[in-house]
């Protein structure tokens, strides 16, 4: 008997849960209300069936409970009833399906006037490309990809010269303008999903997929990767900013075309050396760092990483948090670097300094550290040398005490807090793996052993 009541309770509970739960679709931000409508229709029909079937079952259990004096009915089948039920179900299912197919028809055929933007996925962040003035994307190929051409642009293809390369994980799009996202992956499968847009699609290496949306609400929305793409799958985040046309254009102007990238002069080491004079006060003439001043060892770091950090310091993306005591000392220094070219010069100079490992100061249980480092190695490499395509710096080329500080900074959200910090959030999530002081020391102690191995 209890079970009949229990089923009714479960059904009622489910319905209450449905209506009262605060967990439901996020507010919609793209013109995909039709999707929400199909969801509503589905809820309605399936909800009614759910209630009907279970209530009827509860009724039967209650009404026909066992009694030794009773006999069950003997009716093997009833064609009439079965036919009706088949028809009823078919109708119900058709009512779900038909609206769905219409909406899907919309989804697979983006409107003619949709603008195009390419979403590029890689382990484990997003970048973007605009087709530029000619509205045609240049050809790309994996074979062209290297640290200077992360988009894999084909230098021979004239259509690619005016493509705008957005080397950032924040994409801006204008409001009320349908946009077709062309999706390209450089490595494994990813999935481009924005909960507020409702639509999503996988990125498949070796081909281009697409989806489209018409953003209707301004705001900043999170991009999630929803196809398992390796250990840092959950840390693969980005943002889409929907804004008015004007702000959008200003934003787009801030990024270089491929031609502009090609035209950049080679970094000037002499100029870089000149600028480095200021830095050497703390980091030392050879970039060996000085713990007393909390200045880390920087020789051996890659140019792309130094360049990015310098830019972040300069723009207040890093080192501007009030709790980042040492980081804040960097900003005024960076003000001395006039422009991007100066940043590139100094970064190139730092990268040209002979790599000398600094003394180890941190000790810990290296065996445990090695276990923790399994995850880290996906980005920083088995040898701790960093992997450019992952955006992850070398860990052996800097001071070990500094690593500990930075890991704390990530974990305390003192570093990587800024929207424009492309990789900060990722490292924050990763640093959360380290639960107590010992973990920090163990992993860094293990990283120290990698220096010896090299």
């Amino acid at each position: 008997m209890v079970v009949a009541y229990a089923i009714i309770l479960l059904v009622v509970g489910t319905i209450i849960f449905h209506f009262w739960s605060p967990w439901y679709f996020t507010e919609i931000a793209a013109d995909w209300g039709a999707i929400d409508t199909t969801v509503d229709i589905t809820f309605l029909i399936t909800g009614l069936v759910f209630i009907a079937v279970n209530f009827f079952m509860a009724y039967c259990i209650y009404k026909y409970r066992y009694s030794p004096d009773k006999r069950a009915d003997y009716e093997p089948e009833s064609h009439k009833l079965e036919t009706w039920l088949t028809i009823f179900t078919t109708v119900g299912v058709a009512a779900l399906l038909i609206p769905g197919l219409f909406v899907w028809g919309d989804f697979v055929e983006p409107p003619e006037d949709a603008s195009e933007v390419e979403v590029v996925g890689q382990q484990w962040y997003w970048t973007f490309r605009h087709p530029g003035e000619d509205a045609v994307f240049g050809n790309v190929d994996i074979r062209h990809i290297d640290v200077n051409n992360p988009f894999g642009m084909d230098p021979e293809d004239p259509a690619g010269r005016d493509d705008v390369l957005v080397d950032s994980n924040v994409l801006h799009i204008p409001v009320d303008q349908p946009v077709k996202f062309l999706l390209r992956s450089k490595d494994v499968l990813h999935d481009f999903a924005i909960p507020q847009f409702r639509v999503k699609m996988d990125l498949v290496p070796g081909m281009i997929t697409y989806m489209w949306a018409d953003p209707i609400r301004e705001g900043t929305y999170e991009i999630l990767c929803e196809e398992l793409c390796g250990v840092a799958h959950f840390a693969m985040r980005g943002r889409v900013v929907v804004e008015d046309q004007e702000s959008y254009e200003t934003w787009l102007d801030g990024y270089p075309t491929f031609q502009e990238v090609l035209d950049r002069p080679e970094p000037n080491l002499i100029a870089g050396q000149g600028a480095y004079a200021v830095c050497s006060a703390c980091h030392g003439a050879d970039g060996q760092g000085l713990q007393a001043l909390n200045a880390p060892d920087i020789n051996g770091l890659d140019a792309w990483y130094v360049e990015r950090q310098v830019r972040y310091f300069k723009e207040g993306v890093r080192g501007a948090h009030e709790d980042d005591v040492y980081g804040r000392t960097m900003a005024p220094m960076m003000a001395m670097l006039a422009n991007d070219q100066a940043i590139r010069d100094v970064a190139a100079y730092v990268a040209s300094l002979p790599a000398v490992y600094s003394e180890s100061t941190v000790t810990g249980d290296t065996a445990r550290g090695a276990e923790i480092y399994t995850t880290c190695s996906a980005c920083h490499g088995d040898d701790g040398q960093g992997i450019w395509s992952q955006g992850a710096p070398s860990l052996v080329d800097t001071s070990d005490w500094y690593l500990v500080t930075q890991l704390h900074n990530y974990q305390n959200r003192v570093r990587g807090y800024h929207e424009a910090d492309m990789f900060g959030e990722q490292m924050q999530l990763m640093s959360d793996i380290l639960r107590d002081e010992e973990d920090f020391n163990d992993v860094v102690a293990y990283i120290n052993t990698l220096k010896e191995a090299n």
Partner: protein
Amino acid sequence: MAEGQEHPLSVYFWIWGLLFIISAFSYAVDYFQFQGMLRWSLILIFMFLKAGLIVAIFMHMVWERMALAMAIIGPPVVLLFLIGLMAIEGDYTESTRLEYFGADAGVYAEPHSLAASEEHH
């Protein structure tokens, strides 16, 4: 019938001969370098003829009772869906590749090195 699938030996010799002849035909399709639709249809026709003869006669399918024959021939029908859809899919994949990566895909028989690998330490 005495014990099992017993048929006059001549049937086998006939089929045997036929199989040789059809094989020779399909070989000829290549030898004379027929191209295009003609080639494909000939290849397929000869293929199915041969397959049919083997299954029907050598494997005694024509002499089996319908219950068994249907049970074996029926299920592969679902494969037709797989084949058809995968053909469409292959076409689609190629079309996106040509559109966005260009048609000049080289062949890399040997591992190619990239600037990146030198760049990086």
